[in-house]
């Protein structure tokens, strides 16, 4: 049986706080709305690869340093 994909955890809130940005400010950098930033931070929505890359570039970190699907440690 196919394994069900679980939600990916992320450090977006933490990284945003480090820069002193509000959700709205981060949304402006990424060209997404404040509600969308909230949805990603709370894990309600996992971003697409293009958006994940954009987030990674904005914080100057590799994607794996921001998003964690919980599989890396298990492997």
């Amino acid at each position, binding site marked *: 049986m196919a394994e069900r994909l679980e939600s990916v955890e992320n450090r977006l809130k933490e990284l945003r706080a480090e820069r002193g940005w509000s959700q709205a400010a981060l949304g402006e950098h990424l060209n997404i*709305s404040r*509600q*969308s930033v909230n949805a990603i931070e709370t894990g309600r929505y996992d*971003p697409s690869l293009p958006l994940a890359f954009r987030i990674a570039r904005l914080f100057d970190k590799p994607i794996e340093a921001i998003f964690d699907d919980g599989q890396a440690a298990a492997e």
Partner: protein
Amino acid sequence: MSATDQFAEITPKQAAKKYVSRVFGASLGYIGAVFGVSFLIDDGDPVTVFTIMAALLPGIFIVLMVLALWKYLSEMDEVARHDHSRALLIAAFTVLGLAGSWGLVELYNDAFPRIPVFFVYPAFFGVYGIVACMLYGRKA
């Protein structure tokens, strides 16, 4: 619509503004067309090509409203698109279920009132609007 739409020049606020202005324009056209057609056609008038064409006129503005929503879906960011797409599906399934069930009740029971098919449109957008607010507005 592609996954890279969120990198478009247009911001979410601009997309929402454009959507509202498009729908507002189409709504004004729709109201004008409904009043115009009601003024031109009386209940007892014979059916002609003119009356059929006139009756279809408000429908053009309904199509424009649907196209405005389609355009908005392509301009909003991917999270909003995800939630709005879900809301549209939920609205479609809800209205299909209700309309189909009511249609059968109408078919087998003469005592039940006939509801014009026209009401599918406002019912669909009513359900879509409520569900979209619930999905996109929630915190987690």
